């Protein structure tokens, strides 16, 4: 009985490997083919681009941020997918993309406001510095809390 079971197990493992190795080989080859041509910047943005999300806005934000900044994202509520609203998706992509700048939960803790289709003027804060992406409602506003 033990011998029969052992032989069957060995055969099952061998059959698994026989089928798996070529399958996994093809899988790895296909994944390599899909991404081998990407530049470093394309790899950085691949997650957002595949969602798809406008990564040029996150690039604009990223260019204005400094290490140690604590940002708060201002974005109107908008439906995005069956699983998430747009704010959640933007915040999720930003978390990794904008590090080492860190998101704060409360506007009161932030040093920078990042606006996406929103006017930072409506927050009634004083800003020491502000950058705008052309005429779009895309801003990076550095908060002046000095009084």
């Amino acid at each position, binding site marked *: 009985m033990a011998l029969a079971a052992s032989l069957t197990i060995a055969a099952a493992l061998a059959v698994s490997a026989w089928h798996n190795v070529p399958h996994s080989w093809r899988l790895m080859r296909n*994944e390599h083919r899909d991404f081998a041509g990407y530049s470093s910047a394309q*790899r950085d943005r691949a997650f957002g681009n595949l969602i798809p999300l406008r990564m040029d806005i996150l690039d604009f934000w990223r260019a204005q941020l400094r290490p140690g900044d604590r940002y708060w994202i201002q974005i109107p509520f908008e439906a995005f997918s069956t699983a998430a609203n747009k704010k959640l998706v933007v915040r999720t992509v930003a*978390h990794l993309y904008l590090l080492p700048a860190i998101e704060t939960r409360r506007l009161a803790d932030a040093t920078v406001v990042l606006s996406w289709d929103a006017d930072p003027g409506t927050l009634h804060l004083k800003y020491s510095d502000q950058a705008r992406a052309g005429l779009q409602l895309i801003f990076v506003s550095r908060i002046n809390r000095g009084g």
Partner: protein
Amino acid sequence: MAVELAGLLVVNGGYLVVGIAALLALRWVTAERRTWYRLGVAYLFGLVIVTLPASYVALAGVPVSWTATFVGLVVVALAVWRVGLRWPHVRLARPTLSVGGLAGAGIGAVLLVLLLYASRTFAIRPLVDWDSWAVWTVKARLLYSDPSLAPAALRSGNYGQTPYPIALPTLEALGFGAMGRYDGTLIGVQFILLALGFPLALWSLLRSRARSWTIALAALAILSAPQLLYQLLTHYADVPLGLFVGLGLAAGAAWLVSEPADGWLLGCFAAFLGMAGLTKSEGFLFALAGAVALGVATLATRERRRLVPAAAGIGALLAVLLPWRVYCLAYGLSTPDYDLNHVTDVSYLRAHADRLHPVISELWRQLTMTNKWGLLVWVIPLALLAGLAAASWRLLAFAVAWLVLAAGGLLLTYWVSTLPLGSNLTNTSYRTIVSLLVGGTALVPLFVFPRPPDDAEQASS
């Protein structure tokens, strides 16, 4: 990219050195006892003993690279102190050619070629999967880029679920440190290195009681499973978790059929299951199930001389796991996905009993997908049958206890979950079963044509 890759390989070489040093310092590898084959676990053992303290100390805002360097240097210094600067003269037995040994080497070569071929994909595939971006890598980059702010940010809930343990992000952060910069793509190499370390460690752990060719065959069937390599490619934590669960279980099971006073298998049991418990939340469940299974198997055999070592092994494992639970309790870190109090709430369970059938169906469907996992799910019960026929009671008690507890615990987490079944099941079932399959299959070589003790003594000499 070459410089960054070289840095990553150097730090992984460091894990190997630390692992060897630890085995020497603990006298688990000595010239006299001809225990050279134990060096097979050195890479992953070193990685674990560096990563675990680094992940804990990171919670106090200390850079992971500082802790890892400190721990590594201490371990190497201890090894030098114990054995001196002279490498112990290891007398290797002249290898005897056997059909089984040649078959094992051949199967191992196939596995090596597959993993090396896969490594080029791991080096260039970007982060394109949700959890790797939103949970694991973001935590890792946080630990790397701003260690002082990381603890508060990790507790804020902005950077992935707060009760998720951080061993995997710590390992990735150590990789970023070695590369000199954050690179969410190239860190994939760290994941394929985990896979490369697995068969060698499994062989090392099981060699004294299992045949090389069955170990190699089991490792090949596990690592060549398309779903395993694909999930590893996504940088999710589930496959690393499965690999550590498999090694921890293999170590525990091998100890049950080995000399009880020999601590190296129990040390590996605690280290690898400890790493599993700090890799994912369900890893805690699988590790705890491993501890209970070891206790059950030890008590069931009524072998008195195993009681104290088993208690020590379980104690060491709990000593690794519990601080994280204490940390979560101290800061009130909990998940909105489920309330563990419901586990003992019979009225709640009864009210949600309608979740059971779809959960069981979906988990079983995933387990039995042969295009993803081959025949692994059928191999495990067959191995138990072989154990039953051969009256391998200790192994059988351990394997059955772990499988029942782990599968039952997994089922229970879906049962008490507050998430709607549809999306929750679809998004997770294909991943949560990984540890069941890898853990179960890692035990299989002990049941298949097991190496008799006399034979094993010769093998280790």
